[in-house]
């Protein structure tokens, strides 16, 4: 089971963390910058707005996590299953048998992906969906090798089965 690299989640959660720091910073600094805010009516309004903002951040943070956690690739010894979650209302699930794999490519682009070793793996297939992509996955080279090994194993098994059936017909 493969998820996107944790850095991908971190990059998306960075906005949430930054906005949280700004909100907490404003709670601490605003009374010093604007003393009128300490008046009871203003203080209630200020705290209400801050709280509403935190509710928004909490929900948004979880939406980011859902987008990350439910994007998953499952590699078995028979097929690859790609589950792709986009927001809350779009979910694609596709399967690919190893026998349909024609070519596998892995790419690592950029400074941070090179340092942390993550990138994309593209699988060229013979089916309707011509290209199957593992996006921003950790150790793409190892995944490429594993897929190639499993695809070769699947091909060998298919060839053995064909040879066995031919032999049984001849006999």
């Amino acid at each position: 089971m493969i998820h996107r690299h944790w850095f991908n989640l971190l990059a998306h959660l960075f906005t949430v963390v930054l906005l949280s720091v700004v909100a907490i910073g404003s709670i601490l600094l605003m009374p010093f910058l604007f003393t009128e805010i300490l008046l009871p009516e203003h203080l209630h309004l200020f705290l209400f707005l801050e709280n509403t903002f935190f509710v928004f951040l909490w929900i948004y943070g979880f939406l980011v996590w859902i987008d990350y956690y439910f994007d998953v690739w499952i590699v078995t010894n028979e097929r690859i299953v790609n589950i792709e979650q986009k927001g809350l209302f779009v979910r694609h699930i596709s399967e690919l048998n190893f026998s349909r794999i024609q070519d596998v490519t892995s790419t690592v682009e950029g400074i941070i992906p090179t340092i942390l070793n993550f990138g994309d793996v593209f699988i060229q297939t013979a089916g309707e969906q011509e290209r199957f992509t593992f996006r921003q996955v950790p150790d793409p080279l190892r995944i490429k090798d594993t897929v190639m090994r499993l695809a070769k194993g699947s091909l060998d098994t298919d060839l053995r089965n064909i040879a066995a059936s031919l032999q049984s017909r001849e006999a």
Partner: protein
Amino acid sequence: MKPIFGLLYTVLLFSYIATALFIVFHVIRYSLTTRTRFFGAVLFLSVLGVLLFTNALLFFSLPFDILVPNNYSL
């Protein structure tokens, strides 16, 4: 309390609750392990529950008569 603010707050609250329900549905329905399903839903709902409760308390303690003068007839 001015009725318009009550109405706007109700819309805001319902939109938050609707989004939260969809998130909980996803966490429970699609989580890959029981542990993630349980901890994800409990963590999300407990923090959101506290935030929404304090949000409602703060909203109902807002002095609208002072914040919005009566000459603005909302």
